[in-house]
């Protein structure tokens, strides 16, 4: 067992930290948090030159053939920097889905362009009940093969060139890859506190062609995409919480009240100790889950645990950060709220704690079928 990243991974992390420190400093993060686009085209192109959007993609398709674990470590750095970008949706979740059907026409068309960062894609999954669970999908093509209805909480639809729409096809699910410019597709912004750019995407009798379909219906590719997305959003939370920890500890060392730094008071010390525990424990689960998934082993329960835990713990860390900083962190010009809101958004994206804890509940053997357990109890009562 070795919990340390490999030397190549350490290099990736160090160069990402250095690049983002230079090109995505806190003042830029604050500016981008308030503007309509939400991210910087120039910065995206620079990231593309570093090969980041193609990290998961095999060299034959224009990428660099990195592992999911590499990507997770990189996204942790993006969270640390507070970088706003469509990276997780486009370069992690959608890319993972396309990689599951590499020979399908949409994948052949789109993967090289996603890898080079030339095009951006988003994922339209969630419907009216707000659940990130493919089982709940009801949107389907009508008898004439046209799509009518809408999807909610679609991230970065305003800058997406393509949208991957999860639809019901018979008893299974299908993935459609549609250009956002296709006639009948509408994008209405949802105004959120989080800084995430979220949209309702509407489909008004949208034509669906044979070459839009992502291969034969199979749950596995979608499951892999959702798992990668959940891991990446967890990494973003861990990175952001680490930044909150560092900003907060620095403040506790330098802010003087009552004649000494507030960090010399036990009340503040213990809050800082809880903060570091929340961050470290979240990271421990994240790295183990990302490694397991990267090795191609069954990682469903590990990913669910990591996402559920970080969703609670990193949010707790953010609230503690505000409490330790005091009034100054209530200001818009202070960076803390940007990291806090990013964690808030990430905790919901690709499934909230409740959804993932249900996966864990099944994994630890809690029965969700009433008959058998009921019978056992009846027998016990008669003893």
């Amino acid at each position, binding site marked *: *067992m*070795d*919990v*340390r*990243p*490999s030397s190549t*991974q350490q290099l990736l992390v160090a160069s990402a930290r250095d690049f983002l420190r230079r090109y995505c400093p806190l003042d830029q993060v604050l500016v981008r948090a308030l503007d309509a686009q939400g991210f910087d085209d120039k910065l995206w192109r620079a990231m593309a030159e570093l090969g980041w959007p193609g990290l998961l993609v095999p060299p034959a398709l224009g990428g660099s053939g990195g592992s999911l*674990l590499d990507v997770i470590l990189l996204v942790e750095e993006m969270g640390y920097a507070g970088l706003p970008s469509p990276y997780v949706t486009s370069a992690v979740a959608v890319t993972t889905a396309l990689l599951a059907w590499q020979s399908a026409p949409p994948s052949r068309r789109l993967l090289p362009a996603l890898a080079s960062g030339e095009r951006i894609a988003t994922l339209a999954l969630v419907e009216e009940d707000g659940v990130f669970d493919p089982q709940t999908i009801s949107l389907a093509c009508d008898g004439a093969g046209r799509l009518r209805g809408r999807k909610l909480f679609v991230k970065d639809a305003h800058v997406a060139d393509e949208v991957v729409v999860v639809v019901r096809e018979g008893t299974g699910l299908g993935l459609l890859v549609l250009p956002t410019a296709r006639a009948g597709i509408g994008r209405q912004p949802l105004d959120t506190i989080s800084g995430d750019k979220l949209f309702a995407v509407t489909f008004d009798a949208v034509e669906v062609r044979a070459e839009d379909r992502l291969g034969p219906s199979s749950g596995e590719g979608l499951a892999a995409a959702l798992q990668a997305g959940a891991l990446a959003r967890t990494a973003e939370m861990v990175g952001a919480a680490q930044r909150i920890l560092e900003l907060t*500890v620095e403040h*506790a*060392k330098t802010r003087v009240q009552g004649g*000494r*730094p507030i*960090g*010399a*008071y*036990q009340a*503040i*010390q*213990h809050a*800082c*100790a*809880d903060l*570091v*525990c929340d961050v*470290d*424990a*979240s990271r*421990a*689960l994240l*790295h*183990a889950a990302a*490694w*397991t998934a990267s090795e191609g082993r069954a990682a469903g329960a*590990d990913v669910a*645990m990591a996402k*559920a*835990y970080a969703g609670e713990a990193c949010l707790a860390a953010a609230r503690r950060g505000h409490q330790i900083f005091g009034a100054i962190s209530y200001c818009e010009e202070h960076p803390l709220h940007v990291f806090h809101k990013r964690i808030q958004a990430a905790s919901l994206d690709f499934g909230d704690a*409740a959804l993932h*804890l*249900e996966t*864990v*509940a099944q*994994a*630890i*053997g*809690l*029965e*969700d079928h*009433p008959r058998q*357990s*009921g019978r*056992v*109890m009846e027998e*016990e009562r008669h003893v």
Partner: protein
Amino acid sequence: MDFALTAEEQAFAAAVRGFLRDHPPARYSLDGMDAGYGSGSHSRAFLAALAAQGWISMCWPEGHGGRAWPMFFKLVLLEELALAGAPFGPLAGCWQTADAIIDYGSERLRREVLPAIARGEATFWQGYSEPGAGSDLLSLTTEAVRDGEHYVIRGHKIWSSHAGIATHGLVFTRTSREARRSRGFSMFVVPNGTPGLDIRPIRSLTGDVYHYEVFLDDVRVPRDLMLGREGEGFVALLNGLDADRFWGRFYKAPALRRVLGHLVSHANATTVRGVPLARDPVVRRRLAGLATDVAALRGLFYRAACLLRDGAPITYEVAMAKVLADETGQKLARLGMDLLGPWGPLRAGSREAKLDGEIAHSYLTSLGHTIAGGTAEVLRTTVAVRGLGLPAEPRASGRG
């Protein structure tokens, strides 16, 4: 990164599981109470069975009778024993004492005590705390005064686990009054039965005896039973404390996983108002949340284990993991009491008791875990000051 056990470690885990199948832990007689840490009761018989496999001394250097196996084999052994609920109570203390003797013990300690540990015959109590020296350990007053080839120890120790049934005490004493606050301490290995040693049981709120208080009235101890050099006991103790907390809590995650498994079975087999407990969304979420907490705890301990193995500096990692271990244990015990409802407080052995009364027992014993071996408050301060570099709170008084 690599989060898997090696092939050798997995093979050893399988061997331990095979041993546990052939030697069901329930068959071994128990000498002392299970304090709920996850290591089970004090059982000299079970310890002897482990010794017969060569597992107590397996990681010692070959020159000291060991097999020089890597440290991770100890983790594998502890994890399998804890998952099985085996009574290996004194094992971690034996290992730490042995490590200290190997590192800086006298020839006599190596010749007499080390082989007894390897055979599973020697177990240890810690004489650290005193009535007036708890979290502020260095204010202790027990003194050891040199008298020729002996030291004469006089003082009063308390909260010494299993002192009445162990074979030796590790007694932390002051050997010099002049020295600085952290200097002038020495550690002795004192055999039980030494004249002047008066070991009295303290009945705990569980109704059983786990702790003892120990009166030392001019206890004469040969010089070569000192562990380390005179005046350097505190350095030894400090080095030992992180290891103490690590080895004293590493098995908590697997032990909690075992209890969690029992609660899951209980929820699957119980209906309340016609509805299976396992289908109650709150019950599902709380049990799944605890399973997640336990997985995080295991992750933190394995991270600390990698640091210890690689000789990397440990500042706050073990202190933090201990706090999380003990508070997670309390959370699980509390959840167990909730799930059992009116059956919760029924003791082991009572009619109608569920899950062998283990939830009531762990609910009570878990109260002590955030106090013993460094309170959660002292350890949070350690995390903040040693780990995060926050300034220490000024001392009210003392020798500085």
